[in-house]
């Protein structure tokens, strides 16, 4: 039987390298997947431009943050980027609405099949991508400020007397709290508000919704605004927590779509659950458990190797495998039934 202290050490180790990082990464994926699922549920196409919409929103937030920083504005221990967030959401919403008016509305009027809209969104993705690179460049940008840690690994060790440290980053807590608020607000909006109900009705049966006097233009507009807000919040939180580089947002498209599909595309609750499923799988499968097992197993029986299922190089492959398995075994995703 391992001693209590060893169990605590093992739990701390896992929390530091798997649980906490997966919690914040999962929240960021959940917010991204919510945007994808919303567009799919209401506008009925897979929006491949979502990753680069995130990059665009984050870029605007960074530029405004830099401006605020030069003016000396700050939120004290919180990152200045939170102050810039509303303006970034506004700018991103305007841009996606311009893209909707110039590109997507044409295909809607033509009553094109969803696959044509999806292909058109790939075009929009490349344009967004180019705009971001043109304005801010392809390199890393740093915009995080404020307190970086709530508890540092070394402080935790001296505080608890354990061998293992636990670093709690303020961006992790911020990500989880903001995700909680945003998700709650979105669910309330969809279930209770008049516009939310209209959106669900529109998603359920477009013709019936039109007959009952719902204005489709308004529904589309509100959907894009919400999607832009979700994308910008997800992007800024990801950038604060990790770092901003336009290309990495394009790469996030795969885990985001995997999250949306695993949860059941078109299901907001599914997107949230899917986000955490993907994040926890990616991190727990690529983590090396050697040290963890060393704490728990009796002396002498710990593994020689690293006890790592997959090399970290294959992180993206994990979401891809989950995606394929879900599509083969349960194509509806975890939550099935009516969308939205």
């Amino acid at each position, binding site marked *: 039987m391992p001693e209590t202290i060893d169990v605590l050490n093992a739990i701390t180790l896992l929390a*530091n*390298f*798997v649980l906490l*990082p997966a919690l914040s*990464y999962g929240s960021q994926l959940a917010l991204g997947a919510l945007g994808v699922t919303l567009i799919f549920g209401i506008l009925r196409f897979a929006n491949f431009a979502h990753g680069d919409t995130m990059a665009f929103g984050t870029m605007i937030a960074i530029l405004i943050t830099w401006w605020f920083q030069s003016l000396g504005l700050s939120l004290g221990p919180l990152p200045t980027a939170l102050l810039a967030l509303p303006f970034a959401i506004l700018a991103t919403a305007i841009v996606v609405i311009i893209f909707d008016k110039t590109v997507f509305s044409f295909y809607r009027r033509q009553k094109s099949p969803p696959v044509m809209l999806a292909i058109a969104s790939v075009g929009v993705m490349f344009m967004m991508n180019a705009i971001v690179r043109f304005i801010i460049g392809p390199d*890393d940008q*740093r915009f995080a400020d404020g307190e*970086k*840690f709530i508890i*540092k*690994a*070394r402080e*935790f*060790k001296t505080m608890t007397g354990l061998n293992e*440290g636990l*670093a709690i*980053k303020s961006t992790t807590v911020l990500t989880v709290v903001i995700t909680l608020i945003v998700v709650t607000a979105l669910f309330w909006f969809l279930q209770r508000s008049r516009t939310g109900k209209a959106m669900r009705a529109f998603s359920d049966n477009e013709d019936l919704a039109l007959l009952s006097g719902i204005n489709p233009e308004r529904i589309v507009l509100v959907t894009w605004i919400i999607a832009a807000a979700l994308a910008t919040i997800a992007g800024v939180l*990801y*950038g604060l927590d*990790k*770092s*901003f*580089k336009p*290309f*990495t947002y394009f790469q996030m498209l795969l885990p985001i779509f995997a999250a949306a599909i695993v949860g059941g595309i078109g299901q907001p609750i599914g997107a949230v659950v899917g986000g955490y499923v993907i994040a926890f799988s*990616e*991190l727990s499968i*690529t*983590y*090396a*458990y*050697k*040290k*963890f097992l*060393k704490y728990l197993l009796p002396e002498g029986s710990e593994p020689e190797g*690293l*006890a*790592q299922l997959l*090399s*970290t*190089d294959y*992180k993206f492959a994990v979401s891809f495998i989950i995606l394929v398995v879900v599509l083969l075994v349960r194509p509806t995703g975890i939550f099935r039934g009516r969308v939205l």
Partner: protein
Amino acid sequence: MKKTLTGIASALLLAGMAAPAIADDVKVGILLGFTGPIESLTPDMAAAAELALKEASDSGKFMGGKTISSARGDSTCTDSAAATAAAERLISAENVVAIMGADCSGVTTAVANNVAVPNGVTMVSPSATSPALSTIEDNGFFFRTSPSDARQGQVLADILKARDISEVAVTYTNNDYGKGLADSFAAAFEAAGGKVAMTAAHEDGKADYSAEVGALSASGAPELAVFGYVDQGGRGIIQASLDSGAFERFIFADGMVGDSLIENVDGDLAGSFGTLPGSDSDGAAKFTELANAAGAKGDGPFTGEAYDAAALLVLAMQAGNSTDRKSIAENVMAVANAPGEKIYPGELAKALEILAGGGEVDYEGATNVLFSDVGEAAGSYKELEIKGGKFETMKIH
């Protein structure tokens, strides 16, 4: 009218053909990547090499008063076909007697194998560091004034041993440079009795390296060796390690040593250490002074190596008293190593005089040139440690 034009054109053509045929001028090719990923370094490297040629030429003692000039070619650093074509042009059209170059390991290998060795032209590279170049079939025509990365791995292993570090985890950038260095380091460290707990590659350009760091720290090694790039994944690895408290002290190779590391990483790097090619010898100081006086940048990367490469070619011609391509190759080793009078930057006139009188020289130059059996610099490295927020030189290896 048409006839007049044709006449002028043919006259120009004749004049153009006649121009290069000035009798007493010796041409040396300078093949560097003037375009491409290291285009910011090459102008200074070329200027340093031309400085050595000019010094010899102006002394009036080079082969009884001949002059030397240079012909530049663009190696592009990455495109082997373009580099090969440029080298062909230097050898056949410009009629160079030897080549100072090329720069990056890949194009250097291509030029040596496809152009220089088949044509019997001596090449001295100032900056190709791949261990693979030690074993190419060069028939004695390829030299380099830069050390092989195999040597850096050895030096790092020695430093770790001297500091009583017996177990490390290694992460390297996933390319030829990173892999070669990680392999040579692991071999040297294990031969010295150390243990490499884990070796893992990392990809550059990712936003988040916490998963990589998690795996590396699970290996149980107390220290992490990072063989990557300072403005790329290497920095990400270090940031993620400090954030999660996985590692506190790091071991760097040359790609990680730069002030931007200290500027851009949040957290305490004090006590981390690494290696960088170079020395603080008298020769290096003399070269910096000489280059700065001539308006070039004397302390830039690989400028000393470029000066030395060109100087070695000049001295090899003087030693054989011939600009014959084969004779140059045969005399490079003799002037580079002992015995003989030690020669430092700015003393080429003295060396030319000694050689003309039948004496011997041991060229030290800016980088303490000492060639191994296969004609490459044994190489000296600075051991640097971060102290008080900057890299400080601790020792020369």
